[in-house]
């Protein structure tokens, strides 16, 4: 029987076994699945794993997630306050860097694996590994050193430091964030994650000028990944466009998977990659809140056919699906991606 991991490995090698891999990034929906609040849901790694497995069964996609919410990384640094919502992702409420002095005092945890704030994630990963490890890709979300400061001091203050602040403070913070990243990716790998989403909005020229990308993003990307390597790493701009930097990242890094913005032309991205790496065709999933299943199906068809027209190193994906998307639209999306991405009549 073909597994989701088989599909992903085949896609990485430019082949389709039965259909392309279909990644559906369901996070907060797990709370709805279990009928509990988002806050209660994320308090327990067993619940998160259980919901991931239930949703996998229900929708039939090809990946599970160990990500609770992005602010978890700030908690590992000491953030004490997370703001929960009834219908959306939890957010950092207490930024641990309030002044440049706090950057000097910022402590990178010695060991992430044994960190109390990693315990529930580790529990979740252990269950996912036991239940679907080696069969279904287990995803982890890691924020690049260049983007992590936004979680520690807010996007506004990070932009201010980056563009107008003292460079010694900027570099000290980036070094600490990179040290953290290296430990974090190691902890996730050891805990069983095999798809490591490297989230770097500040590695997109939608966010920063090309000059800074070359001077900083690329430099810190190399440092983040030089120790542990880029095996399983997916380059993701957090919804920002990648095309402006794609050629340089492909040339200078050994990253084999790219996850562009849903606002980019997938055909153009595939042509830029030109078979050198695996690429996702990403749906603008905020629209799934309002579309009818037929509209979802039509958009999935467009994305999958546009992607596969340029080659088979292609899979389908979502951004971080908003909580309120109806189940019927999730099902319509996954089914359509399998249908239009099937071998051999995938519309090429």
């Amino acid at each position, binding site marked *: 029987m073909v597994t989701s991991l088989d599909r992903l490995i085949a896609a990485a090698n430019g082949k389709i076994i039965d259909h392309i891999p279909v990644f559906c990034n369901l996070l907060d929906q797990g709370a709805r699945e279990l009928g509990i609040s988002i806050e209660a849901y994320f308090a327990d790694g067993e619940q998160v794993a259980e919901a991931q497995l239930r949703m996998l069964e229900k929708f039939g996609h090809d990946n599970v997630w160990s990500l609770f919410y992005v602010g978890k990384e700030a908690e590992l640094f000491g953030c004490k306050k997370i703001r929960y919502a009834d219908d959306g992702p939890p957010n950092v409420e207490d930024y641990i860097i309030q002044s440049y002095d706090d950057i000097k005092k910022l402590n990178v945890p010695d060991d992430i694996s044994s960190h109390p704030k990693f315990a529930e994630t580790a529990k979740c990963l252990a269950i996912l590994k036991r239940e679907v490890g080696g069969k279904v890709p287990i995803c982890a979300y890691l924020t690049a050193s260049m983007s992590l400061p936004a979680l520690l001091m*807010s996007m506004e203050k990070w932009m201010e430091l980056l563009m107008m602040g003292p460079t010694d403070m900027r570099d000290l913070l980036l070094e600490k964030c990179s040290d953290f990243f290296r430990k974090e990716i190691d902890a996730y790998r050891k805990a069983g994650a095999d798809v490591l989403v490297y989230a770097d909005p500040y590695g997109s020229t939608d966010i920063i000028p090309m000059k800074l990308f070359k001077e900083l993003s690329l430099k810190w990307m190399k440092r983040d990944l030089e120790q542990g390597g880029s095996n399983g790493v997916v380059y993701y701009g957090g919804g920002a466009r990648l095309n402006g930097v794609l050629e340089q990242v492909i040339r200078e890094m050994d990253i084999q998977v790219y996850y562009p913005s849903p606002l980019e032309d997938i055909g153009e991205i595939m042509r830029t990659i030109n078979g050198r790496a695996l690429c996702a065709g990403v749906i603008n999933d905020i629209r799934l809140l309002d579309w009818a299943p037929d509209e979802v199906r039509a958009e999935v068809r467009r994305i999958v056919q546009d992607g596969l027209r340029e080659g088979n190193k292609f899979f389908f994906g979502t951004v971080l699906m908003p909580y309120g998307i109806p189940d019927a639209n999730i099902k319509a999306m996954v089914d359509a991606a399998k249908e239009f991405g099937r071998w051999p009549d995938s519309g090429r």
Partner: protein
Amino acid sequence: MLDDVIKAYNEAVLDTDRAGALQVVSDAVIRGVSPEDIVFKVVIPGLDLMVKAISEGFDTNLAQHFMTSQIAADVTEKMLVLFKAPPQILGRVIIGTAAGDLHTLGKRIVIGCLKAQMIDVTDLGVNVPAEKFVNEAVARDAQVIGVSAMMVHTARGENGAVKVRKLLKEQGLEHKIKLVVGGAPFRFDPELYKVVGADAWAENGVSAYKAIIDCIQEVKQHGH
């Protein structure tokens, strides 16, 4: 001489070179350019140029938007104290992030640009209840409420812009106060502003002042 100042200022802004832009302005003032001309013939047209570049599809980035706004606000603040007479205020705006939303960058970009346009801005901060938006707008005789939301649930949720609209309607204020929204979810769904009951939206923080000025003028044209 003014043409050279405009050219040098715009180049510095596009290059996100704050120190360079401030130097251009400082040199210009020493050479006799009036503070009024700096604001009305250099800074404001500079903002218009950025908006034009964005609308024509030139690749700009968030850092450029941030620095454009920051530089415009900094220069305007420095020049205003040198004005011969206080400038005429174009309008009044209340701004903040939606209930449950803590993201401030977009709001800061909008505020900087509005200040440079001689618009009086009151920043209510983050996680602002809808009632506060409306009460403050009434108290300060504002023509526009600006609600910033970076997350889907805060952009679409019942306690954000949707509730501001509901309150404006209930209190019979819709002809006096316009509602403008912005933030990532609106960029990913250009029709979303209508769903939440806003009068207008902007794709980015720099362009927002255009939408806001249009709303201010609409309110004023109707005699309020």
